[in-house]
């Protein structure tokens, strides 16, 4: 129960103000279509440089949680999911809003988000120390395979194309090797002065997540946002609470599904929401009502996508393997404060780690309180024209990338990676595995080299890396993730071919 002793840190004036600001700002950013939670967190990192580590993480954690919940506002009131995680919410939420039940849909979305979020954070609290103790037994070969597993899982599960997903991961791994080699001090792949110190993670994250979205907005030209915002009228919060309690089955399925999916690296909130929606629909007595404004749909989807947040941080905090792109951005936030997550995190930086986790728990309650009351305002802000959003995000990205090391070189790297990623995405490549490759590359390489040194003094690299129960278990997971994705691709291709033949 160590986490209980750090709640006081969250209520320090600056920390609490940051939690409040991160929650409200995250709700508004989340409600804005075109701004993904990952991009919002990446753009916030430069603002954490001047804060104490726990304060910086409180801001990032609050933004992570509330941007996902904030996406429900635009999904319900505008029928545009603020984030991919809210796709399932729009299916019933918007129909409810059109029927005049907008407030009820929002109440259900935020309350079930909070329930899912609290359970998810509790899982994070109770599972992380256990896994961290277990992870202390991991040697370099295991950590090497875990890093490779992180890239293959996210490369195969997060991408629409199996080959392009893995290829994106390889590009990220290669990018991580640019700069000076840590052991020999040899220059590798340095094509320009800006790359001498390697690719700065924060500048890369901003570039990879913000610039493609800016370019996407620009490529749509002068689009007029002629969306009707459905105004929310006051409705009883207590009645909505009763409604949520009466739909306990949907709430439980959503929370359990989200928590399980969250722990699996690379799967993410989008799938959590859709899987929970689908599972609830399958076992519901009112399955025909789904899609017609049924509260169960909103409850299942929203509880799942917020239940995913806490568990998605477990691999990050115990093994320093980010399980999702947003967790990768949070890792960047930890690294700039000199904190390396992993088995020793709760020994060396217990105050930072527990304060961060506690703030996420309190953030769930703030999210409900503010989410419900600022929904109308957030929906109006969500209508900001794309021209302003694109110009604003671009300037913010440049300022943010520059302020990392006060270097124009980082800005050049940021724009080069961002433009490159925009075109790669157009051809089916994905940013998430590339980012994971970029972040996990140094972890994989240092453990690979350490393992090689140990293996040199023992029975050789083949025995060291390819034998032992844990190595074999991790290798089989790598192979399984690749085979599963390969099988899924074949199945999808066959379906596409069949539909073409039918046409």
């Amino acid at each position, binding site marked *: 129960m160590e986490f209980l002793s750090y709640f006081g840190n969250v209520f320090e004036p600056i920390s609490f103000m940051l939690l409040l600001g991160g929650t409200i700002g995250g709700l508004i950013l989340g409600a804005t279509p075109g701004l993904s939670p990952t991009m919002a967190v990446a753009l916030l990192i430069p603002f954490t440089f001047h804060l104490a580590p726990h304060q910086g993480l409180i801001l990032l954690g609050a933004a992570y949680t509330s941007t996902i919940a904030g996406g429900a506002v635009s999904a319900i009131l505008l029928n545009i999911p603020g984030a991919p995680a809210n796709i399932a919410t729009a299916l019933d939420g918007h129909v409810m809003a059109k029927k005049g039940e907008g407030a009820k849909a929002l109440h259900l979305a935020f309350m079930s988000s909070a329930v899912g979020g609290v359970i998810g954070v509790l899982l994070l609290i109770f599972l992380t120390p256990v896994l961290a103790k277990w992870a202390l037994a991991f040697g370099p070969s295991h950590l090497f395979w875990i890093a490779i597993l992180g890239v293959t899982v996210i490369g195969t599960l997060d991408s629409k*194309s199996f*080959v392009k997903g893995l290829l994106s991961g390889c590009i990220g791994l*290669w990018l991580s090797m640019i700069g000076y080699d840590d052991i020999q001090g*040899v220059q590798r792949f340095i094509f320009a002065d800006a790359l001498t110190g390697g690719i700065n993670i924060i500048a890369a994250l901003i570039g990879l997540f913000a610039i493609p979205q800016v370019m996407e907005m620009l490529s749509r030209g002068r689009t*007029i946002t002629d969306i009707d915002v459905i105004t929310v009228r006051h409705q009883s919060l207590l009645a909505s609470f009763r409604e949520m309690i009466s739909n306990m089955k949907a709430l439980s399925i959503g929370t359990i599904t989200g928590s399980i999916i969250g722990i699996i690296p690379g799967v993410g909130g989008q799938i959590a929401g859709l899987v929970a929606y689908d599972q609830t629909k399958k076992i519901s007595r009112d399955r025909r009502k789904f899609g017609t404004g049924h509260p169960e749909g909103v409850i299942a989807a929203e509880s799942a996508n917020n239940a995913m947040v806490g568990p998605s941080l477990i691999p990050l905090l115990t093994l320093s393997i980010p399980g999702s792109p947003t967790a990768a951005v949070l890792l960047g936030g930890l690294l700039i404060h000199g904190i390396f997550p992993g088995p020793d995190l709760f020994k060396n930086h217990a105050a930072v780690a527990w304060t961060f986790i506690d703030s996420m728990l309190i953030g769930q309650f703030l999210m409900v309180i503010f989410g419900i009351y600022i929904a109308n305002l957030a929906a109006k802000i969500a209508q900001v*024209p794309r021209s302003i959003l*694109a110009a604003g995000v671009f300037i913010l990205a*440049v300022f943010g990338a520059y302020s990392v090391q006060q270097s124009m070189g980082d800005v050049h790297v940021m724009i080069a990676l961002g433009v490159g990623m925009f075109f790669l995405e*157009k051809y089916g490549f994905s940013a998430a595995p590339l980012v994971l490759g970029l972040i996990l590359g140094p972890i994989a390489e240092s453990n690979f080299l350490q393992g090689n040194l140990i293996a040199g003094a023992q029975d050789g690299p083949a025995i060291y890396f390819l034998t032992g129960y844990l190595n074999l278990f991790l290798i089989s997971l790598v192979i399984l993730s690749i085979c599963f994705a390969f099988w899924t691709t074949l199945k999808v291709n066959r379906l596409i071919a069949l539909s073409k033949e039918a046409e």
Partner: protein
Amino acid sequence: MANVDYKKVQQTLAAAIVLIVAGIVAWLSYTREPAEAFLFPRYISIAFLVLSIWNFVRAATGMALVGRGMDLGSAIWLAPGLAIMTIYIFWMAKYLGFYVASTLTFIILFSIYDPSSHTSPRTWLARAAITIGFMAIMYGLFALVLKVQLPRGLFI
């Protein structure tokens, strides 16, 4: 000529560029010394090259189904924005200073892509007001709160 599959051509071109990059990475990894420093890059470059060849074959044979590519309309709309972004980062920020360059870039990008009237003085006034407001927030955040020293240029 009428039956050119532009999606396939674009996919093949993109796959060819990735293949060339993978080839260069593999060549550099295997030709640079000391070998110990390039041990890990060599393994990764093999995987990178094999996957790139696979991707290229799939694209060239029309099997690459994911990714719609760029249509001409989107490319035409994107071009001026991309040009302004490049000029801002590589020239304007250096010579005019960050704040002046950013203000100009913001209003130019905003004006080009703003669907509102471009002949009415009122919309121009609104654009100017939004730009000044946005830059005031940026100045407040970065110069006053975060105290980031941004590059100075000809003006500020």
